Every structure is written in structure tokens, then in C-alpha cells.
């Protein structure tokens, strides 16, 4: 079972995230980054599958130099090898271009049975890269998995449980397939000391666009199919009235709500 996990390096959500004023792209230089927390669930799930059977986990990221940290963390958790696609031309790419680069990298890796991704990145939060990637690779996709069972035999399948508003669904896809996982699926492990030491010896390949046969004109800000025309910080919310409950807090709350016509 060859599993590729797509992981993204994102600005820390706890930090002040912002944009580059020059080109309206997400500021990835001045804000500390890390492996997107939601991708840890994807790494964990891949490790569990391989540990229960056999196979190999490759982590793949598309991003700037610092994105190597995301790979490192996944290798420390236990993934076997890493691929880092890094090319100056990629800066400013949108989901469409990112999915193209990921797709070409996965094709280059070759024999892949399962692609696992997070449900959404914590910065873009579009949650569309996984489906676009599946579309480009011609794979079935089962997304937002809260549970995953993989049957790796001949005619193998990936079966997920998806918790929807109207119903809980069981969905089955034939392998090779793409699965995106939610934060309900498992509890990601922390890298152990052994894992941290072992990661230092694990192979990481760095590929440029030319290694993938992707032309620079297909990616980056200029190739984006959408354009951010402006961004504005939302005015901070001004704190309203805070009352201490002295036996009348509930009445005061009700009074506020009726004054604002909610009652």
C-alpha cells in the first residue's frame, strides 16, 4: 500500500495573520508557520493504515523553503519519506494551480494507492484542493471522513463514514482513491524522541517545476484564475456592556435582547 499524504505549511493561526500589501497574497514570510494542524490527522491516519498492514507513507508539500518544516514534522511522526516541491514561480498560486502541481508530483511518484489530505488548510480554508487534485488524477474522492477503513486487496476499496447534517453516510470508493479526513478521525501522535532522531535520516527530495514538466506560466499569481482585488482588516469588535450577575443577570440579558428586538 503506497500512501501519499499532502501536507501544507501554513501561518500559525495563533499569530497575527495578514497579507502582503504588494500583491494581496497571504504573508508567509513574516508570520511563523507550521504543519497545518488539520493535516496532522491525515498523517496519523496514513501511519495507522501502514502500521496495521504494510506499505509506505510519503508526505508531499508544495511551498516555500520553510515548508520543509512541515515535512520534517510528518517524518518525525513516522512517515517514511518526503517530497518538497519548491519553486519561486509557485508564489501566489491558487487552489487550481496548487492542485496541478500536486497532481504532477503524484504522477511522478508513480504507483500510488491512496492519497490522504486534510479537510481544509487552516489558512486558505477553501477545502477544495483535495477534490481538484482527485479530478486532475482521475480518482474517486471521498471527503470529510470521520472514519476510514481501507481494504488493500485486489479490487481494493476505501470506505468512509461521513457525518452530514441530514444523515450519516457510508461511502465506498475503489482504489486508487483520494480521502480527505476531518479532525474527528483520530488523535494525532506527538513525535517521540526516537521519531525525531530517525527523521534526520529519512530521504527528502526537492523538486522544481521543471522536474514535473509544469510550465511556470501555469502557476503563480499571474496564472491565478481568481484575483483578490482588495483586503481589509475587519474593524475590531468593540466590547459592549458587561454585567456581573448579582441575582439579576438573566433579567438583564432578557432586557438587552428585547431592547435589540430579538424577543
Amino acid at each position, binding site marked *: 500500500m503506497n500512501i501519499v499524504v499532502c501536507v501544507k505549511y501554513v501561518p500559525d*493561526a*495563533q499569530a497575527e*495573520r*495578514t*497579507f502582503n500589501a504588494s500583491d*494581496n497574497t497571504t504573508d508567509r514570510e513574516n508570520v511563523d508557520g507550521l504543519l497545518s494542524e488539520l493535516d496532522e490527522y491525515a498523517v496519523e491516519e496514513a501511519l495507522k493504515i501502514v502500521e496495521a498492514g504494510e506499505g509506505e507513507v510519503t508526505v508531499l508539500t508544495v511551498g516555500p523553503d520553510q515548508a520543509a518544516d512541515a515535512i520534517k514534522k510528518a517524518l518525525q511522526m513516522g512517515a517514511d519519506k518526503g517530497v518538497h516541491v519548491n519553486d519561486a514561480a509557485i508564489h501566489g498560486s491558487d*487552489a*487550481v494551480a496548487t492542485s496541478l502541481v500536486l497532481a504532477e508530483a503524484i504522477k511522478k511518484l508513480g504507483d500510488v494507492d491512496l492519497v490522504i489530505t486534510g479537510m*481544509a488548510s*487552516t*489558512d486558505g*480554508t*477553501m*477545502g*477544495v484542493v483535495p*477534490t481538484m487534485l*482527485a*479530478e*486532475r488524477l482521475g480518482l*474517486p474522492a471521498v*471527503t470529510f471522513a*470521520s472514519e476510514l477503513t481501507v481494504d488493500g486487496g485486489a479490487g481494493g476499496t476505501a470506505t468512509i463514514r461521513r*457525518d*452530514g*447534517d441530514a*444523515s*450519516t*453516510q*457510508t*461511502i*465506498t470508493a475503489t482504489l486508487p482513491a483520494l480521502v480527505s479526513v476531518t479532525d*474527528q478521525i483520530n488523535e494525532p501522535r506527538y513525535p517521540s524522541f526516537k521519531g525525531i532522531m530517525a527523521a534526520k535520516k529519512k530521504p527528502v527530495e526537492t523538486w522544481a517545476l521543471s522536474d514535473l514538466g509544469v510550465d511556470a506560466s501555469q502557476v503563480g499569481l499571474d496564472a491565478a*484564475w*481568481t*484575483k483578490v482585488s*482588495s*483586503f*481589509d*482588516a*475587519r474593524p475590531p*469588535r468593540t*466590547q*459592549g*456592556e*458587561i*454585567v456581573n*450577575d448579582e441575582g*439579576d*443577570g*438573566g*433579567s438583564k*440579558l*432578557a*432586557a*438587552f*435582547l*428585547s431592547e*435589540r428586538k*430579538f*424577543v
Partner: protein
Amino acid sequence: MAEVLVLVDHVEGKVRKTTAELLTIARRLGEPSAVFVGAGFDAAKESLARFGAEKVYRVESPEVLEHLVVPQAELLAQLVAEKSPAAVLVPASPEGKEVAARLAVKTESGLITDAVDVQAADGGVATTQSVFAGSYTVAATVTKGTPIIAVKPNSATPEEAAGAAADEVVDFTPSDAAKGARITESKPKQATGRPELTEAAIVVSGGRGTGGDFSKVEDFADSLGAAVGASRAAVDAGWYPHTSQVGQTGKQVSPQLYVACGISGAIQHRAGMQTSKTIVAVNKDNEAPIFELVDFGVVGDLFTVLPQATEAIKASKD
């Protein structure tokens, strides 16, 4: 006038409010054509007409639904090629976004997700989204292909406008590749009788501070006709279903009024409620970060504050 395709969100012909919102938005951009997949068209026709759908393209085959999003994306791609619409609007639900993502790649068109506003702008479409946990608002446009926009619930007030809703059965066969994933089982959820979280005008949420007892939160919500939400701490503890979780990895809500009860206000929770019009919190700890956001806050025990408020609200209605 160019057509604007609207993917109808419905359960057995019962059209959801988001579809009325999308049809209202579509009229700003051109002439709305609804795309209806599945059974129950007769039941849906009236409301599609009422919100201005001039045409309805429909596909009845249950196969299309059983195989999830790929056939819907193929169908929309076929319609985009045939009708050259000015835009395609889908609901920003997980499924809607998947359809949109595949459609974008198939038609080489720019995709904007989670739009909270959509307007016509010099021959194209201009959208507004809220990003970074609601701390920024960005304006965006599609620069390539047919604009595909996944629109969040509550992004427009549905306005009625009579449309013909003339239906046309589309000649459509999903490809074999579209059948790679299949729903093998579907267990319906029990209805709570409360409004749906993302559509509700008022949301009342409970967190770890409920200690697992949501009854006071629910009573208060019912007195306001509100939907009930939960923090991840409450969901992880098994006190409330995951589908009620508000936040980064749950639902993003933007109601007129959001009431957080026994919730501290972590960044991931804020990401799901920060754009609510009015925010209220009840929390024992006067230093809880949630108070930074509120229009009104009560520092107190939710088990005494909420019942008192519930009584007062009920009394004022009598």
C-alpha cells in the same frame, strides 16, 4: 440576458432556503436557471418559480445522487458548455464545494468559495469573503472561464420574483469514471425541530461550561426560536453531535444573534461565529476571551443566568 446556473439544494423536492438566496443573487447577474437533480421536482417547482427561476434543467436519475458529486459536476460542465452562463452558483456546503471544485477544473474556470456577497461588476462578478477567522474581508473576482461561486448561507435576503420555472429534462449520462465512489448506506438524523444551524437567525451555543447538561442552553434557545450549537470541547466530550459544532472545523455561522454559554472563545471557535451581527456571552470567568467580542456579556453561572432569562423572555411573550 445571459443565464446564471443555480444548483438546487433540496431533500426530495423540499427546497432549502439557501436556494432561494442563490436565486435572488442570480438575478443580479442575469437570468436564473435552476439545475435540479433527483426526485421531487413537482414539489420544488413552485418555490423555484417564486424566487425567479426562469428555467429548470433537471435530471431525474437516482444514479446521479447515489454517485455523489462527480455526476453533478459533469452535468454542470455539460450545461456550461451548452448555455455559456454568466456564472454558476452553488451552496457553500461540503458537497457544493466539491461539485464546484471538480467543475472548475473541468471547465478551466476560476472558483471562489465561501462568498458572503456577490454582485455584478463590469461585465463580471465581484465577491466578498471573510478570511483568517473573520479578521479580514477580501474582495475577489474571477479572471478565467465561467465564474463559479460557492455562496454561504445567509448571504442574501431571499426576495420573491415570479419566474416561469419552465422545465427541461436534460439528456445526460454520467461517465463510468463518475461511478468510482458510491453511497452504500445513509442513516437519516433525527430531526430536532429546531432551525438549521447555518440558516438560523439566532444561534445559542454551549461549551465545556455546561458540564454536559445542555438542558438550560436548549430551553433558552427554544424561548428565542434559536438553533443550538456547541464548542468542540462539548462535542469531543460526547455531549452534543459533531454536526452542531461551531468553529473552524465545524459550522461557520453568521446569524443576527449568537449567544455563547460556557464557551471560552478560542480562536478556532471564533472562526465559526465572529461575523455574527450581535454577540452575547454568559461565562463565569470575567477574563474569558469571548468577552472581547461581545455586545453584551454576563459574568455569571449559566445554570442561574439562563433559566432566569428564559423565564423573562417567556413572560414577555404572554
